[in-house]
């Protein structure tokens, strides 16, 4: 599967790893390179680079032997395991950062609603054991916490469909168009990056699509087998939304109150304006989908281009305002809106002047 952890080579991590490696190798003469790399979650190249350093290392002051460890590329041999005293080779206690990283992640994963109950129980047991073994080093882990969001029922169905290789039918909400569409999808994997998403082959659009689970209004597991074409899994660490270069450009100008747009929308540029606002340039395959944004911004911003997008937002607002006049007339009798009639009347008069 995809997703080796992010692990840049640095001296600290390598030292940490080598200290565990010597303990591990001492008990496993002739261990296979492949197996050891897997057990340590590293590539064989990384392991071999550790094995290049270890023969330069030794334990005792003055005249102590260097570790005589070598490999033929397949197996690892340690010719003088006694060079490392019995005690020196014992497993080391966890550091505060190590306990924090493992415990915070374990607690976060255990809150995933879609996790199988047996796996959750195993994780909770393991967490408790690690907490005990870490002792006071576990304390710092209370300074960090992570909550994943996922819709329990939908999650369980997607997870099951993936493991049973079956097709899914979903009713999916698209906020860009404010509509629900029905689709059949062949799920590929679940990804949790803040929200939880299913990456799937969408049979309707005949393309790979990512669906946010909290926007799935309805879901059914179908009897048909899932048959997604072979696709290369993308690296999603840079975000799920990756606009293409050929997508049309949209320019939005916002005041100080609309600066949040730059936080929520991936964009090409955000230039400071003299009033404390921003001029944001972004790309989207479907500019019409940004009408919602224009409406939401109100006096905090406006679409500069494309022109027709700005016009359609204005048009929608006018249409909406017109509806208020109509409701007002009915509302006065039906809902007995006398209580707030005064306030609304003020707006009515102003609307009519538009």
């Amino acid at each position, binding site marked *: 599967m*995809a997703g080796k*952890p*992010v*692990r840049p080579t640095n*001296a*600290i991590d390598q030292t940490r*790893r*080598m*200290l565990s490696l010597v303990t*591990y190798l001492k008990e496993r003469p002739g261990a296979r390179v492949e197996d050891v790399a*897997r057990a340590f979650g590293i590539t064989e190249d990384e392991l071999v680079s550790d094995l290049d350093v270890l023969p*330069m*290392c030794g334990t005792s*002051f*003055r005249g102590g032997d260097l570790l005589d460890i070598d490999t033929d590329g397949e197996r690892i041999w340690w010719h003088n395991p006694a060079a490392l005293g019995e005690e*020196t080779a*014992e497993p*080391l*206690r966890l*550091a*505060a*950062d*190590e*306990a924090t990283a493992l415990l915070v*992640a374990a607690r976060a*994963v255990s809150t*995933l609603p*879609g996790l199988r109950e047996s796996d959750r129980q*195993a994780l909770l047991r*393991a967490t408790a*054991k*690690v907490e005990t*073994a870490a*002792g006071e080093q576990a304390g*710092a882990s*209370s*300074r*960090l*916490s*992570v909550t994943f969001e996922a819709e329990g029922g939908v999650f369980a169905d997607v997870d099951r469909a993936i493991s049973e290789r079956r097709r899914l039918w979903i009713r999916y909400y698209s*906020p860009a168009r404010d*509509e629900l569409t029905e689709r059949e999808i062949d799920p*590929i994997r*679940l990804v949790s*990056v803040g929200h939880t998403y299913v990456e799937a082959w969408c049979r309707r659009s005949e393309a790979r699509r990512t669906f946010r689970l909290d926007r799935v*209004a309805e879901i059914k597991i179908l009897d048909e087998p899932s048959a997604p074409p072979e696709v290369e899994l993308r690296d999603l660490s840079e975000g799920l939304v990756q606009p293409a270069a050929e997508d049309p450009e949209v320019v939005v100008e916002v005041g*100080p109150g609309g600066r949040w747009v730059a936080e929520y929308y991936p964009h090409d540029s955000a230039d400071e304006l003299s009033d*404390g*606002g921003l001029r944001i340039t972004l790309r989207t395959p479907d500019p019409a989908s940004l009408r919602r944004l224009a*409406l939401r911004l*109100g006096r905090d911003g406006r679409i500069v281009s494309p022109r027709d997008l700005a016009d359609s937002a204005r048009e929608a607002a*006018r249409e909406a305002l017109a*509806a*208020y006049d109509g409701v007002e007339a009915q509302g006065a009798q039906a809902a007995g*809106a006398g209580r*707030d009639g005064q*306030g609304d009347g003020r*707006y009515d008069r102003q*609307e009519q002047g*538009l």
Partner: protein
Amino acid sequence: MAIAKAERLMNLALCLLGTRRPLSKRELRESIEAYLEANSDDSFNRMFERDKDDLRELGLVIETVENLDGEVGYLARRDSNRLPPITLDAEEAAALGLAAKVWQQARLAGAASGALQKLRAAGLPEDVDPYEAHGALEPRIPVHEASFEPLMLACRDRRPVVFDYRKATAARPEPRHVEPWALECWRGHWYLAGFDRDRGAERVFRLSRITGKVRSRGARFTAPVPDVVTVRETVAGWAGETADRSALIRLRTGAGYPLRAKATSVRELGDGWDELEIPYGHGLDAWLVEFGPDVVVLEPAELRADVVDRLRAVAKG
């Protein structure tokens, strides 16, 4: 050729772990090749101090002992460095394996792998592929903010920090002096909770709004850190999810699915419109305006006024 830092650290660690009596700086210098190559006492001293700090970051407890002649010696006692016995079964090992992969932040990813490797050396079973055991689930914890790591360390070490912070609606950032308590990731964004020294009160900060560097002020703060920090409640309040009232709206049939999903009651009016009662919290006006002509607010008057006000601003363009 300069000797790799990892080799130097490894040798220092093994020397300190392997000895039964404290080793003086002089002895250590003579037994580690990289230190022998140091071309001055100064550069050796600097290197040695940094290396000790690095090994302590890795969890090594290094004791400093003065002998009868007043000479300082160092050793890493086995008793204080040994992992207590821990036995995990295959399912527990697989579950931890999955958890160790979720960090997308280099320091924590490295630390989580390191923890697992230590457990592996202590006999953690390795015959289960964590992905097989957990189906297709790939949880990831995103960390894109540069301020994350310094704040994490400041929370851990209880060091006050200063950073420039731009409030959601402010044009310019302002410096904030904070005693950091805890970091929390919610809906994919990181928040810091802490005591704001200038305002004399608890505050929650969104990391993406921190501009520039986080500077850590020397001395540790001693004020108590609360056991329970309510980041999520505060942020939910910003997001308008702590509604204490309700609103009555008309919604065009077939439109506004998320509004329907939140509604406490839906009544079909039969004329192409439905009437919904929905929770009314902070930010509802902006959200309703997104639906344009498909939503009409009936009550309360204050919400109606806010929505009409926003629509007028857009209509004027």
